[in-house]
């Protein structure tokens, strides 16, 4: 008799899981430009979106891709753009725009080897800092890093939820390994998935597109075409959305933007603590590299080395407080990432002298092996 996978089980690439998650989150618009290794996100969107009445458009470049996605989001559609390294740089100006104008948007970056064209078909985690600092000026960033195909599915849904809830672009930072690897995923029942939609105003009179009540951080967002007739600009603006040169307005706006994330860390921060209860050594990792870290920890545990993992699921915001707390009880914090040292800088900043910080990184197109992690730690013994 023919064996079949359960109807809610699929064996798919990470990039496909991302699109499946997006669709389950209510995804309706893709604007982008193809680039390896993110291209499947465009291709699958082209196939799937029209089936659900959504729209896919391949624009003339990455800049236009994110611009179209922002435009679509303004009409109330859940939108996404996807890219990799060089394309991510091109999108930065408009990422800043979406931050400033508070437009919900999911930006997927399937990371590849850099700098520049670099190693286009090899994995990397070299855009972590770009995710936070690629634009000019200060604004908060939310960036998620899945470690598996299944988690890509869930995190994509979460990315849409956070984008809608906080009215801001949210980044999903995967990499060539996670994007192209196939694994089994289980699609949950619709009822078991929480879907968050942006809060829309219900009163046109006195609608303040950038105004909040005391203590709130996220203004209600009307859709273009719904008759609110409001103005959106990337200039510093006041609560009405119109440009303002006043320093006080600029300060109030920027503070509120920062607080959207800083005041909601409890809701946003996400990490995994793996075998940390009795750990003497923390391996901090994220994304594909966390898999190697997990293998390394299993191996070390067998050898009696008390290692555990602190896995970032949100790289930005960075879980400072928890890491600081954890670091006080360990000897070493080893950071493993596929770059020459990015999140490790944040770890150094947070951990200070509480533990020794070790670094295991590479940026030559190969994923870090469990053995490299083990060795980096053992050199300390």
């Amino acid at each position: 008799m023919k064996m079949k996978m359960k109807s809610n089980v699929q064996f798919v690439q990470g990039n496909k899981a991302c699109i499946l998650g997006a669709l389950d989150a209510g995804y309706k618009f893709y604007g982008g430009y193809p680039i390896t290794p993110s291209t499947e996100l465009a291709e699958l969107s082209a196939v799937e979106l029209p089936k659900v009445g959504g729209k896919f458009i391949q624009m003339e470049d990455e800049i236009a891709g994110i611009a179209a996605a922002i435009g679509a989001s303004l009409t109330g559609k859940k939108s996404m753009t996807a890219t990799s390294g060089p394309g991510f740089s091109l999108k930065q100006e408009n990422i800043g725009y979406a931050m400033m104008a508070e437009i919900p948007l999911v930006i997927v970056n399937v990371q590849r080897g850099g700098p520049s064209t670099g190693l286009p078909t090899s994995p990397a985690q070299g855009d972590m800092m770009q995710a936070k600092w690629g634009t000019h000026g200060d604004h908060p960033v939310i960036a998620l890093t899945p470690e598996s195909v299944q988690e890509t599915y869930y995190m994509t849904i979460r990315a849409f939820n956070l984008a809608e809830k906080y009215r801001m672009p949210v980044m999903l930072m995967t990499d060539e390994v996670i994007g192209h690897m196939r694994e089994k995923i289980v699609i949950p029942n619709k009822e078991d998935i929480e879907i968050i939609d942006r809060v829309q105003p219900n009163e046109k009179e006195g609608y303040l597109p950038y105004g909040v009540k005391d203590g709130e951080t996220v203004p209600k967002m009307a859709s273009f075409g719904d008759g609110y007739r409001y103005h959106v600009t990337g200039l510093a603006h006041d609560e009405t959305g119109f440009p303002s040169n006043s320093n006080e307005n600029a300060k109030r706006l920027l503070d509120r933007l920062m607080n959207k994330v800083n005041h909601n860390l409890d809701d946003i921060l996400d990490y995994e603590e793996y075998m940390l209860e009795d750990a003497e050594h923390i391996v901090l990792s994220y994304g594909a590299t966390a898999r190697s870290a997990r293998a390394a920890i299993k191996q070390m545990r067998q050898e009696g080395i008390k290692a555990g993992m602190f896995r970032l699921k949100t790289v930005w915001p960075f879980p400072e407080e928890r890491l600081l707390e954890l670091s006080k009880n360990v000897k070493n914090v080893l950071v493993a990432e596929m770059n020459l040292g990015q999140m490790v800088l944040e770890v150094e900043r947070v951990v200070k002298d509480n533990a020794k910080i070790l670094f295991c990184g590479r940026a030559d197109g190969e994923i870090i092996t469990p053995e490299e992690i083990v060795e980096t730690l053992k050199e300390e013994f």
Partner: protein
Amino acid sequence: MNKYVKKYLRNDKLAHMWCPGCGHGIIMHQIIKAIDNLGLDKDNICVVSGIGCSSRAPGYMDFDTLHTTHGRALAFATGIKLANPDMKVIVVSGDGDASAIGGNHLIHACRRNIDITTIVFNNTIYGMTGGQFSPTTATNDLASTAPYGSIDRPFDIAKLAAAAGASYSARSTVYHANNLEKLIEEALQVKGFSLVEAMSMCPTSYGRRNKKGTVSDMLEDYKETYININAFNKLPLEKREGKIEMGVFKNETYPEYTAEYQKIIDRLKGDK
């Protein structure tokens, strides 16, 4: 208050920020008149711009308005239109915004023939940043970045749009304000990509440096220089010197992008 101003502008935002004699206000006036002529629903209009003096127009217009990044208005507008094809989407853009940094988005919007009406406020200069030459500055004109006279050859935006695939393309000037209104009205009725190039004077960043006299002189210049394309074509070659064509350069019907997309959606529904 002028009835169009009352109805379509955000009066609390006026007086606008444009310099004395800047032509941009005249163009904005013709746009709202054209909208009124067609009786379009205010709640269903979206005006999108990039960055520049001209790109400040949406802030004064009482629709859904979007002031984006420099050069990218058409890309944002494309997303809006495709996501909500029922909206009337209008892009206002400067010559720099539309044809320098935004040139690619312009030709691609033309190629796709997406149903957007673009009004280019062409003052042949970067007004906002103080008078650098733009892709439409005439050769030999002076500009802050062309102190010895520009050696660049200018684009003819209306013709370039036509060549890139737009359904409709036309040009007029702020002197010919009634004509401009008519062309905008016509463009707004096109189902497909339409563009109206509106020649506008920038006394501050262009006129002064190029010794063009008062703004009224500049308007008189338009009167002299721009003649209807049909009249132009009838002129003997030696009389064409120094004249520029205005009027409708192209008005054709092609499949429109969002309508074609809808066909795919309908087809897929049928397949189920």
